[in-house]
């Protein structure tokens, strides 16, 4: 099964603005699924998951919460997009672009893929070269910094969880 | 015309023109006529026909469908006539700025002389607005 693959460092290095990436999510106009993908990436692997979790204590509306797994979760009904957490994180692991008041959604274009397994989503077409791709990946590849999140998403990014040997 | 302006300032007949508002400004305008605020004290009267109007109280964001009618109506009012935009809607579009059905520029549809912002403006604010208009008229 093909997975959506995101090369986060390459995306950061390319200097391209995230909102340039187009998305074909049906329900929201101006929706940019890349935001939500990046948010997933950021909290799943980019975040250092520091024990102090400065971001959580900095949030004025208690929108951030540490899950049992150690990852941070942002509750979108509470977050007001003030970006205090961005400032608070000592490691600068929160991308300011994606912590928005209005959250976006990515359904990974599953509906389209169901009908046509070779379908290429719009984000892949419009993102800077190689940063987004549909790839046939079977397992995580820590050497390449490729990690999976869920069944359909693969992320290439530094992953502190693995580095620090957390499960 | 100074003398005439004074007469006008003392006898303002308003026509209430609702161009896709949320209704609240409209009822607050009506509220102005009722015992608590009683605009008739200032000689202000609500009229039903635009032919009798001195001031048009415009509320709402003016949607595409109503826009030509608003323009038409303005052209039918006997001049001099002033247009007062009541509420945030005519002033800034309120929360409807994302709407596909609102006109791009309200001032193109009807020349608005004065805005009374607020959502809805308090009756006191409206009275103040009217008083300001009177001051302008008194010159």
């Amino acid at each position, binding site marked *: 099964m093909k997975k959506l693959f995101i090369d986060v460092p390459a995306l950061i290095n390319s200097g391209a603005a995230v909102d340039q990436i187009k998305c074909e999510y049906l329900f929201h106009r101006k929706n940019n699924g890349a935001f939500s993908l990046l948010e997933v990436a950021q909290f799943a692997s980019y975040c250092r998951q520091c024990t102090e979790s400065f971001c959580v204590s900095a949030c004025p509306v208690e929108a951030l919460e540490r899950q049992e797994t150690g990852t941070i979760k942002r509750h979108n009904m509470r977050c007001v997009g003030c970006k205090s957490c961005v400032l608070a994180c000592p490691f600068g692991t929160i991308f300011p672009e994606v912590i928005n008041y209005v959250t976006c959604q990515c359904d990974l274009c599953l509906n389209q893929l169901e009908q046509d397994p070779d379908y290429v989503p719009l984000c892949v077409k419009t993102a800077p070269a190689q940063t987004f791709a549909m790839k046939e990946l079977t397992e995580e590849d820590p050497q390449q910094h490729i990690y999976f999140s869920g069944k359909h998403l693969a992320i290439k990014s530094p992953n502190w969880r693995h580095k620090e040997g957390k499960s | 015309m100074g003398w005439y302006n004074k007469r006008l300032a003392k006898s303002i007949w308003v026509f209430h023109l609702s161009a896709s508002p949320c209704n609240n400004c409209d009822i607050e305008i009506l509220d102005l006529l009722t015992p608590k605020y009683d605009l008739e004290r200032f000689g202000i009267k609500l009229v039903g*026909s*635009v*032919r009798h109007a001195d001031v048009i109280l415009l509320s709402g964001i003016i949607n595409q469908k109503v826009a030509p009618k*608003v323009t*038409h*109506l303005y052209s*039918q009012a*006997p*001049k001099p006539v002033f247009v007062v935009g009541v509420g945030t809607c005519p002033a800034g579009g309120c929360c409807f700025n994302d709407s596909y059905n609102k006109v791009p520029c309200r001032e193109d549809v009807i020349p608005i002389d004065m805005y009374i912002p607020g959502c809805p403006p308090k009756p006191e604010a409206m009275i103040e607005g009217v008083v300001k208009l009177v001051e302008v008229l008194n010159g």
Partner: protein
Amino acid sequence: MEVNVVLIYLAAIPFVIALLNILLPPVMQKILTLLGLIYLLRLTVLLYSGVAENFILFGETVFSVDRLGLFVFTFIQVLSFIIFIFSLQGLDKRIEKKFLILYPMTVSFCNGVVLSEHVFSFLIFWGLSGLALYLFCMLGLTKGTPQTAKKTFILIGGSDAFLILGMVSIWFLKPGSSWSLIDLHIPLTGELSVVAFICLVIAAFAKAGGFPFHTWVPDFSQDAPIESAAFLPASLDKLLGIYLLARIMTQLFEVTVTVNLVIITLGAMTVIFAVMMAMIQHSGRKLLGYHAVSQVGYMIMGVGSGGALAFAGGLFHMINHTIYKSNLFLTLGSVEKQTGTSDLENLGGLGKKMPVTFIMAMIGAFAISGIPPFNGFFSKWMIYQGLLELAGSMSKVQQVWLLVCLILAVFGSALTLASFLKFLHSIYLGKRPAKYDHIKETKPNQWLSTGLLSALCVVFGLFAVSIPLKRLIYPVTMELGYPLPDFLGDYNPQLLFLMFALAFIAGFIIYLFTKNVRYDQNYLGGMPALEKYRVAGTEFYNEIRNMKPLKAIFDAAGKKYFDIYDLGTRFTFSVSGLFQRGHPGQLQLYLLYIMAGVLIFILLVH
């Protein structure tokens, strides 16, 4: 001897013209008739200088002219002249020739009626004038024409029979007297005299269109050519009918107060019923037709009341009515000629396109609804006063009775106003259908004739006392033995008009100084003034029509339950088919009937 010729000329000239017209082409017909009518006018003026004596044939006075006759006669000439001006242009080509033959002939017959002193000539001319009515009606081009013509003929012919019956009875009452119709003064005692009275009154009512013998008038106005509607039921027949009534009330019989009251009541009923019917009409012609009936009510009230003021008012109202009603018919004719219809619901907004006609119609409408200072008001005012004057000398019950009649009559003029506003609104005001955007004003002759009539309306209204009353009507009433009337209230039209003008100017000057005009579309709450947004005006009075007790009456009237003709036919149809076979609607047959009747009577009498 030369003098006598004048009288016979009056009836003979138009007749001769009619005969000549049969041969001539239309243009010549018109010229000839016009010249003839002018000559008649000139002869009329001659009559006023007192030159006419009686016209005697076989030793009997056939024609004579007294003030009453002269008065009526004058207006016959004036109106036939003015209406003829209207007919000079714009007649339907299909009927033009026949119309031009019939026209002078009718004038001749009517003249004959008014001039006759002798019973026979009176009867003959009366019958012939009724025949003229029928023939005019046959000229109509609508679907209903034959039916209407038949109806007219039967009602008028039937009333002729009553007339003959009445005359015969009179002869039995006063066998000694000659065949003259003047100064009989039969007291209303005994059954025969009452029968005679009733018969004659029926004849007069039927001719003038009084309730309940009025039903031919609206139908006639609907179907006959509009000029003839203006000519006959609106003016000449009114003149003749009321002329007869006046004769009956003053010269033929001596009536009591009760009879007066009955006549007044009939008058009031005529006013109210007809005007109510008029209000709900959808056709302009019918509306006018019903008004031609309703106004008769006032004349009946005036002439039949027996008081000097009311009598003078009744006569005055009679001529006023002929003036404004023919005016109204003619303006409607102009509209119809331009637009092709007289249906109120299809018309509208013509006031801007036909301003002259509109003004004339407005004057006519105001006059008929008794708006001061037009003539209608003055005569109505006189009648009201006359009635009040009478009331002063009556018993209490009679007073209440009379007052109710009076109030109904006053109210009738409000109703008249109502239906005329509907009339004006539907034709001249309101929204104009787009198809009439290119309508033009009518031809000059048409507005000239309506203009003349309107001018008469104004002049007779403003100078009522000095011109028509003093010059024309008072001599008549004096000759008939009434004293010079004495007004109860005061009404000074000239003063009021001047004052009105002053106030109007005062207001208007302010406007002129402050005006700052801009032209714009209709304001309809932001909608453009589309054609579908219009009120035709025909349903103006639906509420009244649908009111509880009135609805039943109107519905019944709609089913013709009050139509004496319809009732009659229904009755006869149900009784036997005999009569049905007897009137197949052929003119010759009816003529035969009449001739036979007349013959029989003549034989009987001699």
